[in-house]
Structure formats: structure tokens, C-alpha cells
């Protein structure tokens, strides 16, 4: 049986869920942003550059970036998520850092740290991608020197179809094989700075999915830019 219609009613297989984005939502932070895609909502706050302790962690050549991905206890689709770091959150924090680092220019801030805190009040798949979108907006809002924003979305396959921006019901589809591929792209160069996958997919389908994803990310990039400009109007 083929996957003929998207479960949540979207008309096209490459259609994104509705997006809303806003910057400057947390007054205490040096930069902040909210990015929502479908029912997944990410808040990001940037603090820094600020002094880094302990001293041995400092890098005399450039500032370091620390990201913290955290789901609020009530933000999971099932049971309560126990607060505090777990293996999943730590890994996602790390890949989030790696996805943002290529655009950042932290050489102006030797020995310091830029902290990015990413929180989710509600999720419906695609949280790490939403987190990266929010984080890159918050970094720009914080005036951090950076070559570009970073836009992210998950692509993949549900049975025989290549789909963009899977929600939870598609990730859990049982009628055929599923692959979930979170990807982040630096728009100006088209390079990929986050790539993970679980499920099963052929090489051809993978490359096609990435190409489609890259194209669709232009819409997300637009939403990010608009939200940043809106604040400073």
C-alpha cells in the first residue's frame, strides 16, 4: 500500500506545516527568538559573549559556543518528560552546536562563551530543527558576528513518498518503511551543517530528499529573516 495522503491533511508531500517566528521575546537575554512549525514550538535565548569558567575551558583563539536543548516536562507527546539532562538532550545539544558553528565568527571574543538555551513548551516532531532555526535567529538578534543564518527542517520518506517536515504521526507511520532525516543548511552556500537519520532509505532517495529539503528551506529562511527585520523596524 502506498502513502497517498498526508495524515495531517497537508496537500503536498513537500509542504511545510504553518510557520510563525518572532525575535526579542525574552527581555533579560542578549538575544532571543521563538520559532514554531506546526505544533512544535522552540524558544531560544542567547547569553553572551560572557566570561567562561572554569578557566581551563577557555580558548585563547576564539570564543566557544554552548547549546542546551531541553524539553519542558509537559512538552512530550506522551508521558511527562523528567526534567534534567538525558542522553538524548545531550546529543541533540551537541549536534545543534555543530550545525551553528560554521556560520559563527567568534574570533572577536577570545576566552569567552556564548550560551544558547533552547526550550520547548510543546513538540510534535522536528524539535531539533525548530531549535536550530530559533537559535540562529537568537544569535543574530544578540548581535553575534555570523556569516549567515542556519535553516533546518526534517525530510524523509514515508513508504514510497519523499516528504518534508514530518510530524509525529508520520514518524510513527506503520504502513511501510519510514526514514526521518533532520537537516540544516547554510542558505548562502547551500552546505549542510546538520545531518542525521533513522529508518531506512536508499542512496537515491536520500539524495533526492536532501535536494527537495534544501529547496523548501528557502521558505523557512524567509520566515527567519522577516522575523528578525520586524523587531528592528
Amino acid at each position, binding site marked *: 500500500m502506498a502513502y497517498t495522503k498526508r495524515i495531517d491533511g497537508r496537500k503536498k508531500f513537500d509542504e511545510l506545516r504553518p510557520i510563525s517566528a518572532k525575535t526579542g521575546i525574552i527581555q533579560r537575554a*542578549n*538575544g532571543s527568538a521563538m520559532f514554531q512549525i506546526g505544533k512544535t514550538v522552540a524558544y531560544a535565548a542567547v547569553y*553572551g*559573549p*560572557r*566570561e567562561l569558567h572554569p578557566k581551563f575551558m577557555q580558548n*585563547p583563539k576564539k*570564543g566557544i559556543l554552548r547549546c542546551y536543548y531541553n524539553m519542558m516536562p509537559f512538552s512530550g507527546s506522551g508521558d511527562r518528560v523528567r526534567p534534567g539532562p538525558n542522553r538524548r538532550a545531550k546529543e541533540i545539544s551537541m549536534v545543534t552546536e555543530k550545525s551553528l558553528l560554521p*556560520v559563527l*565568527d567568534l574570533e*572577536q*571574543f*577570545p*576566552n*569567552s562563551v556564548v550560551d544558547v538555551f533552547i526550550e520547548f513548551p510543546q513538540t510534535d516532531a522536528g524539535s531539533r530543527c525548530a531549535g536550530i532555526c530559533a537559535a540562529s535567529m537568537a544569535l*543574530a*538578534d*544578540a*548581535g*553575534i*558576528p*555570523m*556569516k*549567515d*543564518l542556519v535553516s533546518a527542517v526534517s525530510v524523509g520518506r514515508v513508504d514510497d513518498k519523499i516528504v518534508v517536515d514530518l510530524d509525529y504521526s508520520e514518524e510513527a507511520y506503520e504502513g511501510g518503511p519510514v526514514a526521518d532525516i533532520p537537516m540544516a543548511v*547554510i*542558505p*548562502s*552556500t547551500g552546505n549542510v551543517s546538520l545531518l542525521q537519520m533513522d529508518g531506512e532509505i536508499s542512496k537515491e532517495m536520500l539524495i533526492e530528499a536532501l535536494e527537495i529539503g534544501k529547496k523548501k528551506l528557502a521558505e523557512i529562511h524567509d520566515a*527567519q*529573516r522577516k522575523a*528578525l*527585520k520586524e523587531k*528592528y*523596524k
Partner: protein
Amino acid sequence: MGEIKVKEKDIVVPGDILATGMDCLPSYGTYRLGDDIRAARLGLAKVEGKVVKITSLSGRYIPKRGDTIIAKIYDVIMSGWLLDTNSAYHAMLGMKEATSRFIQKGADLTRIYALGDYVVCKITNVTSQKLVDVSMRGPGLRKLEGGRMIEVNTHKVPRIIGKDGSMVTMIKNATNCRITVGQNGLIWVSGEPDMENIAIQAIQKAEAEAHTGGLTDRIKGFLDKNIPKEAQEKNKAKAQQESSNEEESRTFDRDNKFDRDNRFDRNNRFDRDKK
């Protein structure tokens, strides 16, 4: 032929294409990628002929030599004080640079500047590793007694100060508040409670509308609306008198320096005796 893609004062975000063509030149806050010049940070575009640059709108303070800042004492060490500069880097205030008074060896430095004190100081040196030295020897550099502190966007500080200090002087005169603006975005205000509130609102209004034209008139309008004319006149007279008094007391202080140093030493001796 190259083409500039942005207008003066356009808001641009990182990655935006500002110009194309090799005859356009990237300047502050921009970089070249292939034929394009792109934004390397969020800000306002500034176009000068074929040169494009970006004026920052946000971001924390970065210590710069020659800046006068407001900093908080957060540690006392053998050779002086460590100061929180409201940036990623602390500053070091050496004993010699702290005061014109003589400090005896082994003196209790917290009696001069205690933890939590705010001081107005000048940045004398910043190394490549961002070690920051400050001095308090110079006109206007001093400890701030009492008052209250607010924080503003450090990129808006020049507008808040105004040309030759015109904006801040106008607010000072209208409210009879003492106001000190640090380049690092900290602003100290001290006066009558209700006047302080008006002064701070005026400062925050100037901060919020820094990028718009006719700012001085609007701030003046705001002050006129909130403070009756007679009160403003009175405040202005008082403010001017006080500032001349301040000058006097400064000269007076200098004359009395020797005396005070002695007193200070005496206190110190007493301290040691107690131990």
C-alpha cells in the same frame, strides 16, 4: 558592473546580499562570498559610494581603549581590584591607578572601594587576549555613591549622550538629576525620586527611538509634558549651580589631599592595631 542591492539604513540580517560585483568593496560587518558582498551581522546598511558596511544595532559591549565606562567591583586582589565591565571581560584596576591618594602597603583595599561599589573609570589598555586595564585618575572618574543604575543597549549610547552631550545635559537640566553614562551601557542616575523616574523614562525613550530623526525635539517634548515649566526652570538653575559646586569641591579636594591622605593612614594604623 557591480550593483549595490541595499539602501542606506536598510535593516539587514546575516547572509543578506548587500552588493554584487568585484568593484564594490566590503567594509565593517560584511564579507565577500564569490561575487557578492554579504552581511556578517545584523544591523543597518551604510553605503558610501562603492563601499558597504553595517552599523550594529545589538550586541554586548566590547571593551575599547579610551572608553569611559561604569564598572562594578567584584573582587579585591593583592595589587588592586577586579571590575565587572558588563562585557565578556573583567577589568583590572591597579592600586596606582585607583586614586591619587597614597595607599600604604598591606592596607585594606575594601576601605577604598568595596565589593559592589560602582566606579566610573577609563579603559587604558586592552590586549589581544582581552586583558583590560582601567584607571580612575582623571577628571570625572570617581566612585558612584548611592543613586540607581539602569542598563541600555550599548550601541544606542552615543544617541543618549547626544552631540557634545546635548541630550543628556538636556535631561539633567530638566530633572536636576545627576546622570553618568558609561560607554558600556550602564547609566547611573541620582536625584529626587519622581524626577529620576522621568529622567530614566526619557533615557529609555531616547534608546528606543535612537534610529529616528528629530529625537532631541521629541525628548524635549516628553520632558515638557511631564515636568511643569516652572519646575524645569528651577531644576535647571539648581543643576547648573550644583555642577559649578562640584567643580569647586573638586579643587577643594585637591588642596586638601594631603590632609585626607593622613587621615586615611591614621585609619589604617588603627585597623592594624586592632588586629
